[in-house]
């Protein structure tokens, strides 16, 4: 009898401890959204043309684009892409970017493209939309970090 009373008392004390701990004030501070860091080298994972996936029908494997921390980029131009030459890049909003702008070397025109930065199957992606050729044809490029 004494033993069961002891067990009951211990269990009650433990429960009380948990309840007290659960009532501790939570840290409700909202952290600011981190700036999106796209610095690194990216390759093409998939491409759609006018909404149709053409990834398997064209060799995109050699394409690379390297975004540098100083705002410049280098493009390995082995596929039609929204820009053709190296240059500089900027995001319209560091934390919540919706557009990326490219200015090619030797030019002043900004090529503005829709930009998304989702995580797909645990892997960060850059999604770019643009028209490297005729503006009636829209391409969507999904980029992933190159190994």
């Amino acid at each position, binding site marked *: 009898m004494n033993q069961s009373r002891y067990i009951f008392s211990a269990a009650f004390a433990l429960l009380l401890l948990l309840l007290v701990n659960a009532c501790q004030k939570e840290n409700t501070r909202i952290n600011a959204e981190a700036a999106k860091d796209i610095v690194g080298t990216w390759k093409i994972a998939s491409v759609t043309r006018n909404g149709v996936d053409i990834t398997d*029908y064209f060799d995109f494997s050699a394409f690379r684009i390297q975004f540098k921390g100083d705002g410049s980029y280098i493009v390995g131009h*082995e596929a*039609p892409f929204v820009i053709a030459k190296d240059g500089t890049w900027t995001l319209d909003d560091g934390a919540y970017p919706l557009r990326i702008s490219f200015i090619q070397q030797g030019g002043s025109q900004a090529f503005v493209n829709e930009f998304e930065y989702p995580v797909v199957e645990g892997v960060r992606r850059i999604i770019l939309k643009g028209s490297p*050729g005729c503006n009636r044809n829209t391409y969507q490029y999904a980029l992933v970090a190159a190994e």
Partner: protein
Amino acid sequence: MKQYFKKKNGWKFLAVVVLLGLIFACSIDIVSIDQPSEADAGSEMTVTVNCKIDPAGTNNGSTLVVGFLVPKSWNAKQNTSAFYTCIPMGADNEKMSLMPVSERESKTQLPWADALMSDKRYALMGNIVADMEWVVFRSTKTYDVNSGITFTLRIVTKVGEENMLVNLGYFIGNANDGLAAPGNDKYHDGKYARLTVVNGTGDLIDFVNPQIAMMELAKATDNDIQTIFYDGDLVETPLSNESKIYLCAKAYTSSGAVIERCEITDHSAFKPMAGINRFRFDFWPRSYFGLTETQSLQRMEYFLTDATGAKKIGYGGSTAETDPFRFTFNCQ
């Protein structure tokens, strides 16, 4: 069963038949289309569409909806006017207004132009090149239609600048009923008429006839990824039984240079597609023809060959050197 109709429920059956008869008597139809079969590029063209309505009972407050299917390159929204005349209804050459994008078709809840393009009964109206659009108009007044009437539509448009063979589509309906489902679609109708545009720019763009080899992108520059689809079963040619198909092409730059790539390698090989005897070739013209930074392509001519290069076909399956497939790089 015979007893069922003869005795107890005969009058009910009769009532249902009469009711069904009344429902199916209500219809809106395109009777005929007076459209030229040929027109000069850039000219003004007038089309008259003769229609009739057989209503069942009263149809109050109907807004007339008219659709016009045209190549996108015509910019028909800016270059087209539609009028309707129905003397019994007091409408004499009434001008119609463009259907606002915000006005949704009642069944699909899509903008009318998108609803027509996504409806298999109308969509491309016999064209196989998808570079078309529906331009939709509506009457600015509503009408109570309670008796059988005929009416005419007059569509005035500016023909595009490119040579082409195309089916122009015409649709009539009303805003209340929208695009009713098949089997109950007496409240709308669509028909098309063929047009050849001559004395215009570029090679003939054939929207109508299936092509042995067809470029996927009707409008493209040399910096697009273009696709050539080849259907070996469409017409019997020397290549019909070949399992490997190659491209033999000449590209013409805007400065007059000619670049030829006619080789039998993996780079010029078509890829087999699902289904028998269908292939595709995806290429980036700037890279494929090795253009310099300052060069741009104006057009290309091409043949398809077998693995030896001995069998070669061009437009329509022709084996003549004078009949290549042709494509003009143009984004307008």
